[in-house]
């Protein structure tokens, strides 16, 4: 199965990268960008064939490694 994981900063947590990208975009002449937030996107290819089990496993991976749950939240999708 394929899993995708979105890891994003929790609301309110400073995102220096996003801020700098927003700045750079306006410097390049792109007007009207109010804000940019940057996160991570992971695609996992899993041997597991049971959807529920795959989801549980990926969530465990997020808690343990893929996301820093102190400042980040994550979203898992299984296909």
């Amino acid at each position: 199965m394929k899993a995708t994981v979105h890891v994003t900063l929790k609301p309110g947590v400073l995102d220096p990268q996003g801020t700098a990208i927003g700045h750079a975009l306006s410097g390049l002449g792109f007007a009207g960008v109010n804000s940019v937030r940057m996160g991570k996107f992971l695609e996992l290819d899993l041997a597991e064939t049971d959807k529920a089990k795959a989801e549980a496993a990926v969530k465990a991976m997020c808690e343990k490694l893929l996301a820093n749950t102190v400042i980040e939240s994550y979203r898992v999708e299984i296909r």
Partner: protein
Amino acid sequence: MIPNSKITDEVVKEHGLTQDEYALLLKIMDREPTLAELGIFSVMWSEHCSYKSSRVWLKTFPVSGPKVLQGPGENAGAVDIGDGLAAVFKIESHNHPSFIEPYQGAATGVGGILRDVFTMGARPIANLNALRFGDPKHPKTKHLVSGVVAGIGGYGNCIGVPTVAGETNFHPSYNGNILVNAMTVGLARADRIFKAAARGPGNRVLYVGAKTGRDGIHGATMASAEFTEESEAKRPTVQVGDPFTEKLLLEACLELMAEDAIVAIQDMGAAGLTSSSVEMAARGGLGIELNLDHVPVRETGMTAYEIMLSESQERMLLVVKPGAEKIAERIFAKWELDCADIGVVTETGHLVVKKNGQTEIDIPVAPLVDQSPLYRRPHVPSPRRPVIKAANTKAAEPIAALKKLMGCPDLASKRWIWDQYDHLVGNDTIQTPGGDAAVVRVRDTRKALAMVVDCTPRYCVADPKTGGAQAVVETWRNLTAVGAEPIAITDNLNFGNPERPEIMGQIVGCIEGMGEACRALDYPVISGNVSLYNETNGQGILPTPVVGGVGLIDEYTKTVGLGLSKPGLTLIVIGETKGWLGASLYLREIAGWEEGAPPPIDLKLERKTGDLVRGLVRSGKAAACHDVSDGGLLVAIAEMALAGGIGAKLDAPPAGIPVHAWWFGEDQARYVVATDDPAGVLEAAKAAKVPTRRLGESASRSLTLEGGGAISLDELRAIHEGWLPKYMS
């Protein structure tokens, strides 16, 4: 005033104030405070900001001397290094945040100490770090090591300040409370050191740097509260660092400082806008009025409470000369930083904070600062430990013991760590990590600064006074070993809960020992930091008073390292070896015994021995030099051999001392010198009345002990370099 939102006992308690402290607050205010005002008292009277448990003892440190330009009390201390220049330095802890979020906690710790130094008008030239982690076998340790090291590197590398030295120990007492202490050394013009005292009513107050968010609100109170399981729930209080913004802030501030524009400048560290504005007003004996509507924020709907207590990083508060606002605006705009006029210096002596046209805070500054709680907490001295006779300890075969020691977590090479730190940027690093002290050149002069951090917690727990003195003395020795004249120290006192008399006893003992050593060595304390409540569920850390020392080298080509660079050098130990094994690393690692009184310190002897050694280095008589510390003589020689890639043939120990005590005893006031001119060294030592003994000669690519086995450098190196990478993989 805005209406009061019910200050209950519960609310007061949540703010970390005792009933007595709250009563004092009421007396000062002469009315019930607003929640925002309570918040301000809470952070200003926290242990972290007020030093309420340690202040009476810190006053006993020697803080002056002919070279001291600025002692404790400002953002950082400063000493005169000649040529019209000053070395500015300080150490700071970020222990609790680093335990909760190791990368960001450590990174923002580095960011904070850098700001303390460049706030003084100094360009940072080097970073150091002192790290203590729990048992390597503890499930959290690896993750913490990896995050902390990446965080320190991530911040320092990006901002372009080399991280040149540090120390890293492991002990189960740090399982729930790691220590992350970061030190920065900077250079300033001696006649242009910037201070934080507000002057001139009517002068404008400017806010520059990053926008304010809801970061780390209550961070300062958290850093003073004992950890419980629940405090992990305070997680959203961690701040995220932005080294890129800090780099811009650094360059912009230094550019502005070159103009005639600044009256006072203070970084927003712990307790952010609160402590920076209060401290500026207090130091100038004046008031400050702030309008929070002008503070750049990155969240909507922030309250006065939140804005005043936010610990968002990379921000500065400035008071500028009349008309200088324009200069500041131009420079900060060039560096693409926010700069906002948020208030004015007043004559009222009050901190007045307005938001949406309402006065939310109105506190008399002088009593807030001067009447802050001060405790002379009860303390009991640590129980005396017995002196352990070397003859009563397990005698291991020297090569086997050496192998064990060189590969133990505390002594194993920390290359895996410093490889992740850019220790070269600037091209002024004359001695890189791996030696006794790092040496960094002073630009455009022949001088260099030597710098080091040290502490031996196992001595401090065994006998706080001796341990405190030893921490000071070890930095002094490390600076001496590279030929530097030690100038002054900064210190970071890391301890458990001061409300426990045993812990308070450790604090008092360590401070006493440190002060005594500083006085005897003319080596004053110019800055420092205190971190208490490093305790989880009643389990305190080992007492860890980290000392950061800085020394001066007049001619940077005359420093030596510890490496044996060629065969045929005579190895001589300077100082007397009696074979003290109590509280030694040998005893802990080989006999599994953390016991005994630590080696005594004789400050007169230290001074005499160090002065001799410094002379040997400076006169070129020493081709290599290393002080003898953890692990004793054989470990010191092994480190010299590995550093230079040349081994040694060592003479048999003298009679009358157990072989293992000779090689692994931790008697103080000793150095190993490698020389081309043994007669010259012995003569100088004799003139100085310092005992010496020939140890052997540098030779081949192995260490050979007369009558005691041998080991190749390749094998030794594999052991020494292998532990940490293997552990981290």
